[in-house]
């Protein structure tokens, strides 16, 4: 903690001994900001995908759809016997036949609002909500095929697995990008620190001659690069959050479209980015400085 405080405040005399090098300052701040910005966007997309996928998956897991053949002659009889079967099935908590308006709303995105639904043979849909525990899909299927010929029970497992799979992949890609961003920041800061050390070779030689330890000289560089990286990253995060807040926000009732952004504990991550940038910069500069000092003097 004291070391951290010292690093933040610095030793003004040591800072004066090693002059600022303008080029590497701007370069470090700029790259840290850009990388932090990209990290925020990546995190936002990754978290949002994850949230949408798990919401959909949860919805799908607790629901099933029964589709009755679109035959106007038998429709009413089939609906009655289907409801009869479903209502006597253990584990089924709610059964609801979709009204014509609802079916129309479902089809609207594909066929437009003027679809004359009553003139078309559209299968009747029944929404089933299950509680999962004593719900027996295979038993229900067997009873339906006996009593409601032509009815098709869709328990959504076929949709759920690829959805979760896709979400997991997006998440993996997200974290890979974050790791790559971290590695890029480390590489860039190493280069910038090397340049700063090389540019100050004569000053470093003088400091060594008058009895400065490597740690003392390294600290002047480490401090600067750490603060610059953290500062740049903070700016990048703020801009990133600004951009994220401009993205379309979904409404709370619809699980289909969620706003891109952060929720709850996810907020820790964008706030951690400047800290992580500082840690990366600290160790990258430290390693570069000690290596360079050993080679140089």
């Amino acid at each position, binding site marked *: 903690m004291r070391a951290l405080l010292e690093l933040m405040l610095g030793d003004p*005399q040591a800072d004066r001994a090693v002059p600022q090098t303008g080029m590497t300052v701007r370069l470090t701040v700029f790259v840290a900001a850009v990388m932090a910005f990209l990290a925020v966007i990546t995190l936002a997309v990754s978290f949002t995908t994850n949230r949408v996928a798990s919401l959909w998956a949860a919805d799908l897991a607790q629901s099933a759809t029964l589709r009755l053949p679109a035959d106007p002659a038998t429709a009413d009889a089939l609906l009655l016997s289907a409801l009869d079967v479903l209502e006597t099935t253990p584990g089924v908590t709610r059964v609801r036949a979709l009204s014509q308006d609802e079916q129309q709303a479902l089809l609207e995105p594909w066929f437009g609002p003027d679809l004359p639904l009553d003139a078309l043979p559209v299968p009747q849909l029944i929404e089933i909500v299950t509680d999962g525990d004593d719900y027996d899909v295979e038993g229900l299927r067997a009873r339906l095929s006996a009593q409601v010929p032509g009815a098709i029970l869709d328990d959504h497992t076929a949709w759920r697995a690829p959805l979760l799979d896709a979400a997991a992949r997006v998440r993996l890609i997200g974290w890979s990008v974050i790791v790559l961003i971290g590695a890029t920041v480390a590489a860039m800061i190493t280069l910038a620190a090397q340049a700063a050390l090389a540019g100050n070779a004569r000053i470093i030689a003088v400091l060594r001659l*008058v009895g400065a330890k490597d740690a003392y000289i390294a600290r002047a560089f480490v401090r600067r690069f750490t603060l610059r990286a953290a500062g740049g990253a903070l700016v990048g995060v703020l801009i990133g959050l600004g951009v994220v807040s401009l993205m379309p926000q979904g409404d709370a009732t619809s699980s289909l479209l969620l706003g891109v952004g952060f929720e709850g504990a996810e907020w820790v991550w964008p706030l951690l980015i400047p800290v992580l940038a500082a840690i990366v910069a600290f160790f990258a500069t430290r390693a570069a400085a000690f290596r360079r000092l050993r080679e140089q003097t």
Partner: protein
Amino acid sequence: MIELENVSYGYGGQTLFSHISLTLAPGSFHFLTGPSGAGKTTLLRLCYADLRANKGKVRVFGQDAGALNRDEVAMSRRRIGVVHQDCQFLDHLSIAENIALPLTVSGRGHEAAQNLHELLNWVGLGPQANQRPPELSGGERQRAALARAVIVSPDVIIADEPTGNVDWEMSQRLLSLLIELNKMGKTILIATHDLAMIRAAKSDISARVLRLKDGQLVQAGAEL
């Protein structure tokens, strides 16, 4: 304080000198002379562990200089004040800050204030305290370098051609400062080819004069 035992050194495979032995006893005063290029600067750098002997042993305050790690080298530099041939200042700092640098880098910057004023007056640089090194004359820079060498009150002072580019009067002033330090008990080693300065010094203190020539270190005697 500093001992060289059968030391050989050369840059890049060539031997500059070999089998050199030298002991700087506490409180002693040595001059090192020899033609330009004989290796005087090199010998001094061995003494403050800036170079490592190719052969033989250098002992600094009883420790094997070849076995010191980088931090130990830094620590030993705090006990040896060095006036470098080319002064080695940081041009973006003031003279006062340059003189205080050895204290600053050893985390004793706060001690500088009291010593500095006294020291600047001692070397006659009070008025120049806030100027930058390039603005000073050669003699002023040499005196600043001496002030920087002594600010940590080292046990040993090593000066490389401290009167290299100053006039007679200034070299006399520098010499008297070094003699003053020796009388305070400091061990002094000065590389110079300024024979007039050596003669002047010998009239005041008992100094040994060593001559480095053709890779050999010999005691110079009567001709001075």
